[in-house]
């Protein structure tokens, strides 16, 4: 089932008072997210990621285009009872305790007092914030705030969760903890929409990725689809003789890594097979042959680079 779908979204912001030029934050943006997806939206700062999430939540209005969530238009707020949201740089009322934050925002999501009270402990435990629940949040560290924010986004047991830069400003240990929480959510079968400018985050938890740059969708697909466009092949072998090395270098432009490993750049299976034939004819044992994945990072840098 399609949980999110947009068609030809466009968002123009009014320029500043001094510079009347309009800022285009999203251009012709069409995509969809399926039920159970952990969808990662990747893009440098200013790409329009936050704008997209805000459009999906009715916080910002699109200039053009259509949005549907759970198969319905977003004109009616009703769908928001099934949605959780962790805003970028969120600011909860700092006079509340962690527990009160969950109660307050849970009730604003349409839950009863009894429901939030019975669930808040469970979610505080998931994000490992139980011991801090009676502490005022103004004493929390950034990592604690983000963990509480994630609990807040889950408290109404939403079917769809938006997390905008959930690990921003959090130290490496806190990052790991947040990643583990997300993996836990993935196992529960929730649909998650994750915004990040950090590739590693997305690579580790998402199954689908879209890359956004300057408001435009550059590429979209599963992690495999996006990363398997490389055509670098690595051979691991028993010792290569000089004769064989000569053939590899002259005929196939191989890159040698010592006596037991070389790389070949090709897309053609015939070339690979002819290399294998040469090796076998010369009594070289093939230990492994692997296709190097373009890491998402290289991919990302390449794509953004091509754009600029």
């Amino acid at each position, binding site marked *: 089932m399609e949980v999110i779908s947009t068609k030809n979204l466009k968002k123009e*912001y009014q320029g500043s008072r001094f510079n009347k030029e309009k800022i285009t934050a999203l251009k012709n943006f069409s995509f969809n997210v399926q039920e159970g997806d952990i969808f990662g939206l990747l893009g440098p700062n200013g790409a329009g990621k936050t704008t997209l999430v*805000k459009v999906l*939540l*009715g*916080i*910002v*209005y699109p200039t053009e285009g259509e949005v549907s969530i759970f198969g319905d238009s977003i004109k009616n*707020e*009703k*769908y*928001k*009872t099934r*949605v959780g*949201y962790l*805003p*970028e*740089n*969120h*600011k*909860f*009322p700092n*006079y*509340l305790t962690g527990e009160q934050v969950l109660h*307050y*925002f849970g*009730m*604003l*999501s*349409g839950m*009863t007092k009894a429901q939030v009270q019975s669930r808040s402990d469970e979610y505080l435990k998931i994000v490992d914030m139980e011991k801090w629940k009676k502490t005022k949040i103004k004493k929390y560290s950034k990592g604690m705030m983000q963990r509480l924010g994630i609990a807040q986004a889950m408290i109404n047991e939403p079917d769809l969760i*938006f997390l905008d830069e959930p690990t921003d400003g959090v130290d490496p240990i806190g990052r790991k903890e947040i990643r583990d929480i997300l993996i836990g959510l993935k196992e529960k079968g929730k649909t998650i929409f994750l915004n990040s400018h950090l590739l590693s985050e997305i690579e580790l938890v998402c199954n689908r990725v879209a890359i956004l740059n300057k408001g435009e969708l550059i590429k979209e697909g599963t992690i495999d689809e996006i990363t398997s466009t490389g055509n670098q092949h690595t051979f691991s072998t028993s010792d290569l003789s000089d004769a064989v090395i000569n053939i590899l270098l002259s005929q196939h432009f191989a890159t040698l890594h010592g006596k037991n490993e070389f790389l070949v750049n090709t897309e053609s299976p015939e070339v690979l097979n002819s290399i294998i034939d040469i090796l076998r004819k010369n009594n070289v044992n093939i230990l492994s042959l692997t296709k190097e994945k373009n890491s998402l990072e290289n991919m990302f840098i390449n794509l953004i680079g091509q754009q600029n």
Partner: protein
Amino acid sequence: MIFKTLVFGVIREAIAKKIFIGFFAISTLIILGFIAFVNFDSVEGIVTMSGDEVRELVLGFESFTLGVSYLLLITLCLIGVSSIIPSMLEKGNIDLLLSKPVSRSQILLGKFVGGLLLIFVSLVYLIGTIWLIVSFKFGYWNASFLSSILMLTFSFAVIYSLVIFIGITTQSSILAILINIFLIFLICPFLASREQVLFTFITGDVGHFIINFLYYILPKPNDLQTITGNIIKGEKVVSWQPVITSALFLITFLSASIFVFKKKDY
């Protein structure tokens, strides 16, 4: 349910930001001052007074109290609620609020009702206590004095609608306070006394028309105060026009605030 959460959110914010305590402290000071003031008058004198004289005395005390404090109380309330809208609009807070299953008009009405409730409760404490003191002391129970709680709340609501409008459009609490104080203490008193003051040096139909026009469209705290005085003393209210036009002002600015709030990106 969500609406109720919004309304009580305002109260909780007021408690956390010590606004409630502030109101309570100031009210208590006023009450203590009032007790001292009432005691100046010798108790023995009352025994010899006739019923009518006691009634006059009580009404005198009550109208005097409001006469002195009416506009100041509204200004105090104004300062107390001026940050509600700007703090709601802070980045990272408003985004989350708007992601909840509640319409923007309900969010704003929730803040409006929450502010009114806050002021109403504070006024019940202040006016209620003063009423108890005067009534106990003199043995004359003038229930219509309590209606000033409603009139003050209403006068405040009119001002509050403008505070909300300025808050939504400029996100500034200082500006909301300044503009309202300017209105309450300068513009409105002048307009209320236009016939005695302004018209003596502004002559000509156009000038009169403009001044009358301003008078009718702006809030009328002075006239509302006069009406409150009439009600307390059991006098006939000459004209309810100030109540009606002030209510229209309230509705206009509240609707305009909702209109602007509904259109904006956050």
